[in-house]
């Protein structure tokens, strides 16, 4: 059986007045049923555009898939007719957005919005769809679901709105659930509730989850595999433990080192990554990370590193990832810092 989703060397570029924005530039990954993939990166790294491309929700123009393919159960989504794509969207592939206030329609009752995908995709009657919506609300932990279904989004709290969004995404029992920063706008105690809910749902439905986030804690909690993105490109992919405990790309290592932790007693200066994230219009030559990389060499400036498999199922796009001596530097405790990042242990 083919994997539930394959993204194959996807290039999604935006053609703007200021130039071509290579928002997604060569992303490749596969997703199996029941798996959770964590997509990590900073703002502008292309993680959200990747998700929107899978959903076919990128406006074209200005966006355009320059090359690559996205396959759902072996079938190319890009080659499909608009009508077939629509039959997948919200049905087999559903999405939860970051901000539940702007992604719910303020003038429709919650119940009606959750019933909508059922009406559209499952051809249910109004009454059946409404009853199903109430049941879904109950499943995602909303008390007095019957009454709550008649409420409008503004009557819900942030956490409840996100639960309603999840109920809507789950309505048709999707194979893939794409969650784009689903807990970023929520408080930590509510975040814990939502993450718990997602894990429970996955257990019951065996759907695959793509979890897009900048929070490495959330990824550590949820993900089986991790894709790290930088400047529109994947820089590392592997099983969660491998990426956390044996990162093969200096950027991944830098991210992990720059985090303050609430579970360790170390109060030493943090190890930031120097410099600023790049502009996607004028990406640095060669490896996009080279201006911020403490280990960069002349090759890094001139040659774009390909994403290659270093160990079994663990990919990195660093020129030197295959060199064990080079990788050992990451773990020797030396601080990853440059001249314009004040405060590091240099």
């Amino acid at each position: 059986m083919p994997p539930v989703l394959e993204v194959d060397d996807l290039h999604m570029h935006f053609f703007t007045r200021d130039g071509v924005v290579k928002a997604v530039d060569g992303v490749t990954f596969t997703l199996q049923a029941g798996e959770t993939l964590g997509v990590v990166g900073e703002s502008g790294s292309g993680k959200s555009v990747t998700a929107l491309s899978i959903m076919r929700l990128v406006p074209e123009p200005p966006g355009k898939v320059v090359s690559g393919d996205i396959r759902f159960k072996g079938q190319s989504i890009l080659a499909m007719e608009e009508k077939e794509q629509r039959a997948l969207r919200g049905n087999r592939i559903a999405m939860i957005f970051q901000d539940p206030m702007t992604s719910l329609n303020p003038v429709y009752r919650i119940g009606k919005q959750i019933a909508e995908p059922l009406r559209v995709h499952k051809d249910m009657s109004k009454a059946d769809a409404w009853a199903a919506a109430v049941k879904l609300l109950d499943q995602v932990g909303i008390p007095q679901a019957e009454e709550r279904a008649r409420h409008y989004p503004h009557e819900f709290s942030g956490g409840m709105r996100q639960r309603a969004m999840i109920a809507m995404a789950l309505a048709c029992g999707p194979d893939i659930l794409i969650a784009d920063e689903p807990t970023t706008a929520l408080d930590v105690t509510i975040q814990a509730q939502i993450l718990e809910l997602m894990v429970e749902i996955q257990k019951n439905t065996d759907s695959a989850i793509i979890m897009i986030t900048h929070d490495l804690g959330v990824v550590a909690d949820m993900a089986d595999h991790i894709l790290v993105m930088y400047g529109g490109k994947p820089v590392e992919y592997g099983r969660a433990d491998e990426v956390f405990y044996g990162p093969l790309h200096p950027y991944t290592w830098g991210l992990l080192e720059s985090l303050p932790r609430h579970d360790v007693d170390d109060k030493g200066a943090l190890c930031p990554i120097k410099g600023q994230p790049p502009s996607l219009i004028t990406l640095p030559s060669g490896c996009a990370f080279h201006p911020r990389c403490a280990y960069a060499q002349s090759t890094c400036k001139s040659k774009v590193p390909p994403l290659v498999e270093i160990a079994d199922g663990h990919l990195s796009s660093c020129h030197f990832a295959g060199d064990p001596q080079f990788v050992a530097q990451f773990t020797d405790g030396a601080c990853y810092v440059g001249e314009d990042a004040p405060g590091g242990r240099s």
Partner: protein
Amino acid sequence: MILSRLGSSVKAVDDVSFSVSPGETLGLVGESGCGKSTTGRCIIRLLEPTSGSVQFEDSDVRKLKGKRLKAFRRDVQFIFQDPYASLNPRMTFGEIMSEPLVIHGIGTRKEREKRCKEMLEVVGLSPEHIHRYPHEFSGGQRQRVGIARALMLRPRMIICDEPVSALDVSIQAQIINLLEELQNEFGLTYLFIAHDLAVIRHICDRVAVMYLGKVVELGGWKAVYNTPNHPYTQSLLSAVPVPDPQKQRQRSRIILKGDVPSPIDPPTGCRFHTRCPIAQFPICSEQEPPLDEVAIGHRAACHFAKDFPIAGDSIP
């Protein structure tokens, strides 16, 4: 220092008391709506508290007027959360940074420019950036200018209201290190307001945990994080996932039920009793627990503070 504010019937901050010693960093941590930002704003009188007092060194801040108020505001500066909203887009970095000097009538034009250039270097930017505009820079660079502006008057205390929460992870660490460096260099006192428990732990000497306008736990960072006494603090710590998959899998979480109640109509008694995993009735719903000392310099406002087993998983 006691603050309390009664807005249009919202008790955003209710009977909050704490002190900050010179050179120290006190963290205010809590979820949205707990009153941490309101507390910060009351201190520098961006908001006027309904009752209570704020003491800065020898003066009662709420009674200050005219020149003395201006002098106080020179000594206590503010860094805002959003580096996009807190810098005027129509002013250059030089204009933004010299404005405090102009208001306080310090220096000539030349001297001010010199000081701006020096300060840009201190915060890790280049002196040539003085004629540039905020839109030309990224969030992290703008936040550096926000910090530079707060430093221009050589304040003794800075209130940092979520200074890193709008920034990317790799940039956060840069700004946190910068703030720590500046503290050492200029002997600054910080009141550090944030919702991120890891950031607070890293930068603060003492921590106050707030819930619905009240301080529920207050103590040294080690005490609050390693031996949290209030069930809310324990739940918060257990709710934050740690970036360490194996450890995270072993941690047990206290999942709180429901949402934070509205501060317009807060629960009676202990405000946390509606979500508390160990609440006992009727005492918790009737009597408000005082912020009592549980160990030296460590206070918690819970009737059962000492009895509650400590959630050991998050604690090394």
